[in-house]
């Protein structure tokens, strides 16, 4: 069993198609996905490492391993056209691994490995926007060692350090036509960054709990990427012959979340989360090249994302001792302003609807399964401020996922 899941992880792309606002991927726990991805105001188990390190001190010792499959579909239509183009996105497979262990009764240590950001979109090299983008893959894997301390019976605090590792790969066509077709550019680089995750968890009564969580911005920096250009021979002199290096920085925005948990009965848990995501950090996408590329040593396009809120609500009902049913929904505002839509992240306000179930096989082993449907509003944009590709975009995604919990 374990080997099967490990094999699954081993074969994954370790990335998710961006299916939250921007290139955020809010798929941190199978139980919580089922509840509309709420959880900051709850003790969610090992995944409190992500949702609220302040609640981790109350989590049982254990290990969780889980993954989702993002089947995303993006349709595009050029202005005044009748031809719909579908992006051929590979199935994204964000995953999560959490482990929590109590050092003392009040102090617990945890380690989380999860994928909160990423994007894989493949438009191909024939569509009308190919000079903007053929294919983009962004990957970020967060590794977060965490400590949580139960200050009083009602109050817990926690903090985690985040190391992020990943990379970017971007392919686009160059509008220079040769006898063998159009030019192509490919940028590829490893990226890494640092951040932190802080949380406070407060449970004033048996029925009510509150959580506040701050996940910091992480700047993913590409220090030494490789940029390669395939162009007609007669214009080759305007491009570095054997490619060049590039630097780039992509901000993974901060998220501040206030969560509330409420247990009206012993069997029912309700949760509400409100998050503010600091997307305004993403002002521009800039690549600095090690040599001149077609007359310039950098390219820069404005992004000017704006900060947004995400509103989530979720519920869990324990049908029996071993079976829990879950449902949730959320509204995720788009950080992309009018005029700035791009084919990398053809984003718009998105609605999420989720279901899930949990099944305890015995005292120590349980399974969570979730299903999330995301529907982004159809959006038409001139994309005239971002160097994007104007037109109408519509995205939906189906995201099944499963996780195994082992508690001890």
């Amino acid at each position, binding site marked *: *069993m374990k080997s*099967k899941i490990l094999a699954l992880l081993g074969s994954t792309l370790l990335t998710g198609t961006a299916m939250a606002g921007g290139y955020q991927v809010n798929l941190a726990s199978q139980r919580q996905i089922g509840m509309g991805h709420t959880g900051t105001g709850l003790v969610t188990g090992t995944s409190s490492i992500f949702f609220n390190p302040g609640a981790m001190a109350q989590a049982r010792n254990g290990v969780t391993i889980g993954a989702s*499959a993002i*089947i995303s*579909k*993006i*349709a*595009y*239509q*050029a*202005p*005044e*056209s*009748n*031809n*719909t183009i*579908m992006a051929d996105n590979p199935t994204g497979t964000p995953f999560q691994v959490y482990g929590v262990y109590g050092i003392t009764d009040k102090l617990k240590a945890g380690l989380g490995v999860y994928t909160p950001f990423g994007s894989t979109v493949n438009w191909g090299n024939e569509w*009308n*926007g*190919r*000079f*903007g983008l053929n294919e983009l893959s962004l990957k970020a894997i967060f590794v977060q060692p965490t400590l949580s301390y139960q200050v009083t019976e009602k109050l817990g605090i926690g903090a985690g350090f985040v190391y992020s590792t990943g990379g970017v790969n971007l392919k*686009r066509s160059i*509008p*220079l*036509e*040769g*006898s063998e077709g159009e030019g192509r550019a490919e940028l590829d680089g490893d990226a890494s960054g640092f951040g932190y995750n802080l949380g406070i968890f407060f449970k004033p009564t048996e029925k009510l709990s509150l959580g506040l969580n701050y996940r910091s911005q992480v700047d993913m920096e590409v220090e030494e990427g490789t940029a390669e250009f395939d*162009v*007609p*021979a*007669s*214009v080759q002199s305007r491009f570095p012959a054997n490619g060049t290096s590039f630097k780039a920085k992509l901000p993974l925005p901060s998220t501040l979340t206030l969560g509330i948990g409420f247990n009206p009965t012993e069997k029912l848990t309700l949760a509400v989360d409100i998050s503010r995501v600091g997307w305004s950090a993403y002002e521009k996408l800039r690549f600095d090249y090690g040599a001149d590329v077609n007359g310039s040593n950098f390219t820069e396009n404005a992004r000017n994302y704006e900060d947004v809120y995400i509103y989530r609500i979720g519920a869990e009902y324990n049908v029996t001792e071993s079976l829990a049913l879950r449902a949730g929904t959320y509204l995720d505002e788009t950080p992309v302003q009018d005029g700035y839509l791009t084919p990398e992240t053809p984003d718009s306000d998105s609605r999420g609807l989720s279901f899930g179930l949990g*099944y305890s*096989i015995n005292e120590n*082993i349980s*399974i969570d*399964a979730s*299903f999330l449907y995301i529907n982004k509003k*159809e959006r038409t944009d001139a994309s005239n401020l971002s*160097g994007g*590709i*104007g037109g*109408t975009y*519509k*995205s*939906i995604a*189906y995201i*099944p*996922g*499963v996780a*195994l919990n082992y508690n001890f």
Partner: protein
Amino acid sequence: MKNFIYKSGMLALFAGTLLTSCDPEIDAPNPTAGEANFSKYVALGNSLTAGFADGALYLEGQQSSYPSILAQQFAEVGGGTDFRQPLMPAGVSLGSPVIAATGAEVPQKRILKVQADCAGVVGLAPVEAGARAAYPAAFIGAAPTQQGPYNNMGVPGAKSFHLLAPGYGSPAGLANGTANPFFVRFATSPATSVIADAVAQNPTFFTLWIGNNDVLGYALAGGNADAPTAEKPSPNYPTAPAAFGQYIGALVQQLTAKGAKGALGNIPDVAKIPYFTTIPYNALVLTAEQATQLTAGYKAQGLGHITFTAGANAFVVLEDGMPRKMVAGELVLLPASDLVKCQGKGSMSPLGDEYVLSAAELAIIKQHTDAYNAAIKKIADDNGLAHADFNAYLNKVSGGFTLNGVTYSSTFVSGNVFSLDGIHFTQRGAALAANEFIGAINAKYNARVPKVDETQYSTVVFP
């Protein structure tokens, strides 16, 4: 437990497979012909309509002519699918015949090639792809490979009144200039006219984009033509505006006689095409020493008012027998390139008047273009026809714009709109022109003809 995982995994997989078939859909209004009927579309015009590019008529340019692209888009809203053009045999190209030392010859289409220019500097340059062919043999040997009647009635070189002229396709009229060898290729009879052959097809929809040559001929001659008089005709001088309006009116009257709808294209400011804008009036860059020598040289000829300084200088032009320096706003024609580069023209000796459009000549061009366009607009409005404003469009190109990640401008070679003759469209440029027509047609006839993906059409090909 193993079983449970397996089952739920299979369930998820099954659900995933089911859901992959549910694609998002874009809510866009369906294409419609609106009040227009595109079942029989005929295009009338000149070289731009014919698909002439890179200095010649050849198959690929014809296949991507704007009428051909329009017909393809019209087919989405009930337009006819059998759009016929007097196609060239593959690999053969026909430029407009020119008089050379050995007689008339036919230029070949231009391609970009890396080679040494007249000064020995190696670089990319537009050159004719092969040896010139003899005229008129080349035209006779290049009969259309597709049967008529031809929906694309574009005739390279045609002016407004030529479309009305009987015998414009008569081989016998070639010698005295009353016929056009491009129309001789596909006229239904020696006596016919372009308009007669067009009307005979009973078009339900037409585009008429004619008049560029009525003023371009003057511009290509460097404005070297006097206004015509009763005694002395001046074929290169722009067509008189009043007559122009009558010609367009007569063409439209015949085309709409049976109720056809259509679109008229107006005339761009020809002074904004690369043929006239590539060489700046002050592209003469001198060292201090060269400037002193030239100044002294002109002074010695009693032309002390012509002086030069280190840096950029205006070229010297010979106008009405007198050398003078060009002034800002005046234009140098593209063929002057080698003359100024290697023969000292414009500096050691003046450039001929035929290589320069002076301020006065540009004023004549503008005055006629404006008058033509007023006539075209009025005729379009009076007859309920769509009006494609190519004058405004070329102004937009001239300022530069970005579409789908590609920059378009009137820059020679790299501007993506104009082909290697500096006058005619690239295939991409033709697609953009087709979209201009579609925009005007949709607006006028409440139609939704889908626009074409212009990126599927070639620009200049680099070796």
